C-alpha cells in the first residue's frame, strides 16, 4: 500500500511538472483531458474491472454529472467548486438507482441493459431543449467559478481529481471491498458460498463508480465550457471509459491511467493533425486499440507487462520446491464421532423439470464425524450439496443445523452460520494470490482485514500450504488447488464443512496427503461431509457412508458393511458381477 501511494505521488509530481513545460493551450487542454478519461477509466474499472459486470453505459453517470454542473451554475449560480462534489453525489445516486434493478441481470443482459441508460437519457436531454448548454463566463470571479486564465491550473485540478480516484481505487483494492468484488468476478457462486454478500458489494461498487464518473463529467463541463447530449451521453463516452481501462489493464489502479495516457493524446493529436481529412479518426483509434488489445493481450498492457516481468524473474530464481507436508497420523477411530447431532436432513426432495434429482433423502451427521456420500455419476450428490448450502431450495423437507431450520437462508447467511463448502470443479480466484483467496473466505467471520489475514494464515497452516501463500492461485497444481479450496472454506471458521469431490483426479500419494489433512480437521471438531464418486480412498477416510443412487438413499452404514452391501455392489458393478463372483 505504501509503495502504491509513493508511486502515485511520483506520478502526480511528474505529470504536474509537465504542465510547466507546455505553452500551447491546445496541448494544455489535452493534458487536462487525459486525467478526466483516466478517472472515467478508473470509474469503469471499479465496477467492471473488479466485479466483472461489464458496463456499456458509464456515459449515463458522466453526462448527469456534466449537466448537473452546467445547469446548477446557469440556474442557481452554483460554483463548480461545490457543483462537482454535488455531481459526484448525483452520479452516486444514479449508480444506485441503476444498480438496484440492473444487478438482477448477468453477463450479456447486464451489458446490454447498461447500454440503454445513457442513450435513453441522451434523447431526454435533447427533448428538454438542452442541445447545447454553455457555462456562463465569470470574468470577474474567475477563481470562484473555476475559470482560469492560466490553463495549467486546469491540468492540476484535473490531476488532483485523478489522484483522488487512484487513491480511492488503491484503498478499495486492498480492502475487503475490493477483494469481495474480485471474488465476485472470479466466481460469483463461490463468493456467495464463501460468505460474501454479493449484491450489497455490487451496489456499493456501482455507487462509488457512479460518483467518480459524475465528478469526471462535472469537471469535463468546466474545462470544455459547453455541454451537448452526444458529447456526454454518447456511445463514445461509455466506450472510451471501457477502452482506456481494458487497454491499460482492468482490475488494477494503473491500467486505466496507462490506457488514458496512451490513447487520449494519440487520438487528440491525430484528430488535430488529420481531423479535417479523416473526420472520425478518434473513434477509429479507440476501436483499433480495443480490437488489438483483445486479440493480442486481452488482459491489457499493465498485466501483460507484469506477467512478462514475472516470467523473467521466475526464470532466474530457483523453482520453489514443494515443502514436505504436515505429517498427520490418522486416528484409528474418530473420538468425536459419537457427539451430538450437528446437522440433519429430513425427507428432502428436489426436482428439475421432470428429473427428480434428489428424492426423499434423510440423513444425520454427528459433531466431528466424517460422513462420506457416494454414488455413481448422476446420483444427485452435488444437488444435495447445493441444497445444503443454500444455492437451491428443496421442494420439500427440512434441513436443520444444530437443531435450527435453515431452508430459505442464502448461501452467505449459511456460511456465516458455519457451513463451508468446496466445489467439484475447483473454483479458485485465479488472479489472486493463495493468501488473498483464503482471506476472502475469512471475511465472513472477521471484522477487519488484519483479522481475516490471521484467520487465513491459520487456515493455510492447517492444510499445509503456508509456504505457497504468495503464489498466484492460477499457477497451483490440482492437489494444491484442492487444499486451497479447503483452506478458503476453513478460514470462515465453519462448524460443518462440505467437501465436493476433493479427492477427484489426485494421484495415489496425493490422496493420502489430503486424507491426512481432512482427518486432522475432524479431530479438531469440525463436522465433515464429503462427496465422492468412488469408494476407493473413502474407505480409509470416512467414519460412515451414505450411498445415493438415482437421487435416493440406497444404503448407509460403516465402511465395511457398505462395501459388502449387495445393493451397493449392484449399483457400482452391476448385478452380473455379483452373480458371477458370488
Amino acid at each position, binding site marked *: 500500500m505504501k509503495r502504491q501511494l509513493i508511486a502515485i505521488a511520483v506520478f502526480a509530481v511528474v505529470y504536474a511538472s509537465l504542465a510547466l513545460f507546455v505553452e500551447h493551450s491546445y496541448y494544455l487542454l489535452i493534458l487536462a483531458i487525459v486525467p478526466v478519461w483516466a478517472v472515467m477509466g478508473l470509474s469503469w474499472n471499479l465496477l467492471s474491472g473488479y466485479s466483472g459486470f461489464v458496463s456499456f453505459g458509464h456515459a449515463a453517470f458522466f453526462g448527469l454529472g456534466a449537466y448537473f454542473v452546467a445547469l446548477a451554475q446557469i440556474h442557481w449560480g452554483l460554483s463548480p467548486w461545490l457543483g462537482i462534489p454535488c455531481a459526484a453525489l448525483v452520479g452516486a445516486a444514479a449508480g444506485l438507482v441503476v444498480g438496484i434493478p440492473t444487478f438482477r441481470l448477468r453477463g450479456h443482459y447486464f451489458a446490454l441493459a447498461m447500454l440503454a441508460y445513457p*442513450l435513453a437519457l441522451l434523447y431526454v436531454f435533447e427533448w428538454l431543449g438542452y442541445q447545447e448548454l454553455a457555462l456562463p463566463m465569470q470574468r470577474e470571479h474567475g477563481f470562484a467559478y473555476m475559470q482560469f486564465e492560466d490553463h495549467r491550473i486546469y491540468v492540476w485540478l484535473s490531476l488532483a481529481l485523478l489522484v483522488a480516484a487512484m487513491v480511492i481505487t488503491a484503498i478499495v483494492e486492498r480492502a475487503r471491498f475490493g477483494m469481495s468484488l474480485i471474488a465476485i468476478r472470479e466466481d460469483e457462486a463461490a463468493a456467495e458460498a464463501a460468505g460474501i454478500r454479493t449484491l450489497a458489494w455490487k451496489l456499493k461498487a456501482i455507487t462509488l463508480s457512479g460518483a467518480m464518473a459524475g465528478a469526471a463529467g462535472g469537471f469535463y463541463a468546466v474545462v470544455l465550457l459547453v455541454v451537448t447530449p452526444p458529447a456526454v451521453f454518447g456511445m463514445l463516452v461509455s466506450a472510451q471509459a471501457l477502452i482506456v481501462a481494458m487497454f491499460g489493464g482492468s482490475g488494477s489502479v494503473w491500467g486505466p491511467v496507462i490506457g488514458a495516457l496512451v490513447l487520449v493524446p494519440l487520438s487528440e493529436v491525430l484528430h488535430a493533425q488529420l481531423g479535417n481529412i479523416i*473526420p*472520425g479518426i478518434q473513434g*477509429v483509434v479507440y476501436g483499433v486499440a480495443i480490437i488489438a488489445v483483445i486479440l493480442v493481450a486481452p488482459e491489457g498492457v499493465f498485466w501483460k507487462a507484469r506477467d512478462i516481468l514475472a516470467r523473467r524473474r521466475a526464470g532466474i530464481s530457483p523453482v520453489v520446491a514443494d515443502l514436505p507436508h504436515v505429517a498427520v497420523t490418522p486416528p484409528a477411530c474418530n473420538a468425536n464421532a459419537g457427539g451430538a447431532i450437528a446437522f440433519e436432513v429430513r425427507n428432502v426432495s428436489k426436482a428439475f423439470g421432470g428429473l427428480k434429482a434428489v428424492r426423499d433423502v434423510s440423513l444425520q451427521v454427528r459433531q466431528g464425524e466424517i460422513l462420506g456420500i457416494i454414488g455413481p455419476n448422476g446420483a444427485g450428490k452435488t444437488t444435495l450439496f447445493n441444497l445444503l448450502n443454500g444455492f437451491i431450495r428443496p421442494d420439500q423437507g427440512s434441513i436443520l443445523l444444530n437443531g435450527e431450520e435453515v431452508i430459505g437462508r442464502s448461501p452467505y447467511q449459511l456460511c456465516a452460520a458455519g457451513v463451508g463448502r468446496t466445489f467439484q470443479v475447483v473454483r479458485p480466484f485465479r488472479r489472486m494470490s493463495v493468501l488473498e483467496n483464503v482471506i476472502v473466505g475469512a471475511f465472513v467471520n472477521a471484522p477487519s482485514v488484519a483479522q481475516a489475514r490471521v484467520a487465513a494464515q491459520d487456515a493455510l497452516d492447517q492444510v499445509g500450504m503456508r509456504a505457497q501463500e504468495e503464489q498466484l492461485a492460477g499457477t497451483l497444481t490440482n492437489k494444491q488447488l484442492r487444499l486451497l479450496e479447503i483452506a478458503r472454506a476453513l478460514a470462515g471458521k465453519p462448524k460443518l464443512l462440505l467437501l465436493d469431490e476433493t479427492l477427484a483426479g489426485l494421484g495415489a500419494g496425493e490422496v493420502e496427503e489430503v486424507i491426512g489433512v481432512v482427518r486432522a480437521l475432524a479431530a479438531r471438531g469440525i463436522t465433515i461431509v464429503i462427496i465422492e464418486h468412488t469408494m476407493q480412498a473413502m474407505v480409509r477416510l470416512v467414519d460412515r457412508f451414505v450411498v445415493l443412487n438415482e437421487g435416493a438413499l440406497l444404503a448407509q452404514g460403516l465402511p465395511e458393511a457398505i462395501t459388502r452391501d449387495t445393493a451397493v455392489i449392484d449399483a457400482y458393478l452391476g448385478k452380473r458381477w455379483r452373480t458371477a463372483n458370488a
Partner: protein
Amino acid sequence: MNIAQFIENFLQALVAGLLTGSIYGLMCVGLSVIFGVMRVINFAHGDFMMLGMYVAYYAFGLLGIHTLFGASAGPYVAALVAGPVIFLAGVLAHRLLISRVTGIRGNALQAQGHYAQLILTLGLALVLQNGGLYFFGSSPVSIATPLASNAWSVGPLYADRIEIFVNQGQSIAALIALAVVAAFVVIMSRSRLGKSLRAAADNPEAATYMGIDVARSHRLAFGFGVAVTAIGGGLLASGTSFQPYVGLEYVIVMYAGVVLGGLGSVGGAFFGGLTIGLVQQMSTLFLPNQLQNTAIFVIFLFIVLVRPQGLFGTALRRT
C-alpha cells in the same frame, strides 16, 4: 381532438407501425441468427446495417441500378444487392477477427471469452462508424424514389371522417422484408445447411462429432446475420435519410426486438422487431417525436428486467 380523429391517428400509426415493424423484424432476425448460432452479441450489427444502406445507396446511383431498373423498382433491387455484399463483409470480419475469440478456441477463454467477443465487436463498431465518416461523409443521404412520397389512401371510412394513407414505398419494402424472412426461415428449417447451423447452435461439441465444421457454421451464420440485416437497412434507405452513425439508432431497436422475442429464436425475433416497430409508431400518439427512441429504450429495459427470456421465445422454440 375528437374521437374520429383519434381513431384516424391510431389507425395511421398502426399501419405505419406494421410497415416499419416488418423491416425491423427482418433486421432482428439477422441479429438473432448470430446470437442463436454463435452465442455472440454483435455490437457492430447496426454498423453492418449502415454499410448495407450505403451499399444500396451506391449500387442505386453509381452502379447504374437506377438506370437499369428505374426509380421505382431500383431501390429494392439495390437493397437486395446489399445482402450478398455484406455477407462477404461479414464472413471476412468473422474470419479475420471474431473467429479468434469464439468457437472452440474461444471456449478455452471461458467467461473472459464472452466479453472478449462483445468488446471486440464494440471495437469493430467504432471503426466502422467512424471510418464511415471518412468514406461516406457526414452529411445525411437517402435513396430518392417517387414511391416514398406516394400513398394509397384507404377510406373514407366511418361516414367519411376517417381516411388512412398507406405509404407505397414502405408497403413494398415491408412485403420484401416478409419475403426475405420467409425465405430465411425455410432455409433454416428445411435445408441441410440450415439444419447443420441449428445443430452447431444446439451443441457445438456434438456437431463436431457429426463431422460439422463448427467454425465454418459460425462464419456462415455471421455472414447470413449481417446480410439479412443489411437488406433491412437497404429497404429503410429509400424512406429515411442516414449517415455513418445511423447504426447506433437501430442497434437498440434490434436488441430490444431480439430480447423481446427471446434471444436466439428466429421466429421470435421477427415478431419482436414487429412489436418494436408498432411501439415506436404508437408512441407518437402520446409522446413527442424526440422521445420515440426513449420509449423503445424504456420498453427494452422493462423487458430485460422483467422477462429476460422474452415474450415469445420459449413458446416459439418448442414448435
